[in-house]
């Protein structure tokens, strides 16, 4: 499979300076020719501009385009509305996992389900 490795990272702070969004998409190549897409999604918020940002969502998801069309569509078209909302929920799950309140399996499952939440009506790859 054709592969060169690259990454794109977009960080945006909203004009009111209260939210910071950071999305990183990375493509890695393996010696066996396989390709791995990774997505890191972070959202930080603060109540006013005099306090530092605090993590609201911090999520790392490995996308496997060979296994799922939605993964490749996500990598090439971005998260759709449902996936974005699912990412916020997955952020809560990740937080609960850190506190020992849900299993690691569940935290991983919710992260992968961000991709599965893509609407069939959203753009395809």
């Amino acid at each position, binding site marked *: *499979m*054709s*592969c*060169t*490795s*690259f*990454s*794109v*990272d*977009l*960080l*945006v*702070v*909203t*004009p009111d*300076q209260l*939210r910071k*969004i950071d*999305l*990183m*998409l*990375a*493509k*890695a*190549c*393996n*010696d*066996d*020719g396989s390709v791995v897409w990774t997505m890191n*999604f972070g*959202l930080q*918020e603060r109540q006013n*501009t*005099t306090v530092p940002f605090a993590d609201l969502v911090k999520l790392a998801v490995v996308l496997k385009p060979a296994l799922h069309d939605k993964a490749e569509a996500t*990598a*090439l*078209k*971005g*998260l*759709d*509305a*449902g*996936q*974005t*909302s*699912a*990412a*916020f*929920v997955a952020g*809560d*799950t990740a937080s*609960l996992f850190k506190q020992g*309140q*849900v*299993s690691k399996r*569940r935290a991983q499952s*919710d992260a992968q*389900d961000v991709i599965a*939440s893509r*609407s069939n009506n959203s753009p395809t790859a």
Partner: protein
Amino acid sequence: MLQVAKVLDAIPHKVALVALAVLALALPASAQDCSHPKNWDFYSHGDYTVRQVRIESPIDFLHSVARTLDAIKPSLPLQPGDVFSATRASAGRELIHERLAAADNGVEQSFRLLVVIGRIENCNEVGPARQLDLVYQAVTTNYNAYLMHTIEFKRSEIDRPATTAATSNANGSLLVKPFFGYNRTSQLFGGAQLTARIPGGIFNSVGVAASGSPASNTEEIELAGTRTPQSSILSRLEYRLGYSHTDTPAGNNRLKEGKLHAQLFGATVPLGSNNLVLRFGASLEGGNQQTESTAAADSNDSIASSGYGALKGYIGVTASRGNVSFAGSYGVQAGTLGASTSVAFVKHLVDLAATVQFLPKETNTTNFHKPFTVEARVNGGVIQQLGQLPVAERFFGGNASQDFIAGDSWNIRSGPFIRSIPQNRLNGFATNGPIGGTSFYSVNLTLARPVWGLPIIPKEMAQDPDFLPAVDAAEATARQALIATRKNNLPAFKQFIDHLAPLKAELKQLDGFLKGLPSNISEDISDAAADVQDDLAITNQVLNQNQSALPSKLDGFLKVDRSTITKLIEHLDTLKDALDAGHLGDLANQAKSIRESIATQQTILVAELNRIDFSEATRLADKDMRQINSVLKTFLHELNLVSISPVGIFDVARIWPDQFGTRFGIGGGVRLSLVNFNVTLGYAVNPNPRVQEGRGAFFFSMDVTDLFR
């Protein structure tokens, strides 16, 4: 003069960089091609060694970027002599990305695009010693919120990259830079600028600059400080304390000045959809001024030499929309003849500048970009005489811009600018003597379009079929995240949250049900109950923690295929089946009943959610995205690493009193642009030369294009 000298310090570095870029362009002709440049696995079978590893960046002339890249190189998984591996090469790309992103931590920035791409080249694919080069290319933007929207930062960043970057995130200590230049009035001049950082003090830096020529000399020392207030309105505060001395010819006259200045300057964050930045400042100055035209001064109610005191105030705005950027400034100066409160004159200045770029539709994204740029500037001034007017405070014009404010954070022209007449000679031969004027205006028009260049996004990067879609994907995701967070403030969603009460009641009943399960249950029942317990923990977290963010989570919680509630329902089905299998029929029925109630609530709530109009959230998010789209568009479709453009100019200037009237300048030249830093050299014809004037003048300028309109 000092301002001109200050920007000149960048020349040697830029020229060297451009020379290297041109050299680099010529080199690939001798390079060996790779038969499978896009298939790294082809070279990952253990038979290729890495000849060299390079990290390149279009902006590695910025000191902080260059230093970061140099520090990364020894840590890369693949080093010269290693066997090539696609996996390890990818890990290197990941390391570079992490380090560059980390270098920006702690820097206030409203936007950052960071792209790192790896490529292989110069493959030797025959013989036993097979080799290749591994090259990583990184493109990053690390401008902070205020600096993105004003012309002056980019000038500072590019003129003196090391010192500017140091104010944000570097540990620079001492910087010495030689510079040189030429204009017909000052002749060939040279000098040096020394800047030292002062960590932890009120002032951030101290700078000393001096330059000299057979005709002129300039010296300056300045303490400067910057603060970033934690305010939603004020973005930046700057303050300066300095002394400067200048001695410059003005026709048959000389202008000499020595003065102390103390300044305060502030700017707001970008406001509104046009990224409007308001700026304001004040400067208190005192010293002395001398000229050599005593007789002419006496006959014009002026004074050739005197003490000097001034209080200056200035206010301005910069704004941008689409391909147009605008800056407007007004300055007022109340001046005295020394340490006195008796105001001798009041000077008023207006300076308006606009830049428009027209972008032709591009058919090949790997070519350099060819924006047609129109730059227009109009400025004028008038002096109200209340007493004797120092000659050095009168208006002198020519092909060197004079700044109203000492220092370099804000550029307001304080005299007429016309490129066909040498510095300070606009009315240098007027019948009332070479003593300048008391009012003026000038209009300057510059047109340019590149005819050669290299795009800032390298060809290899732009040609990668995944690169542009990945940038689009990041942009689309940012928009969706903004829409989601904007939903949090819509009243309709706050009302919807009240309607979650029945669902919460069902979840509370479920919690009681789980707690009531017997302890001696099978492993299957226990596992299924654990999954439901996880669901409950997540639903409680979503519904009860940080309720202000709940609207952004509702789709993922209720609506999408793999929503939290859908998974809960599935896990309740599994639990019911496990309870049935364990011959616990009553408990299974209870689980089924709760499951059906929750499913009913989900159906009702999803239907209600679908009816909510969130177009206002979309509108606000799209407004937020304008700035992001503008920056992305600039990087992808406008910005060249280096370009050469023919330039056309047209100037009009008038100064009063001057019996020769309105003067013109028409000419052309060539502009060398390095990213957004422009060096323009040309000749402007004086179409109607007056007595003792030449046919025109060479002009030389350095300025910065406002990239992120």
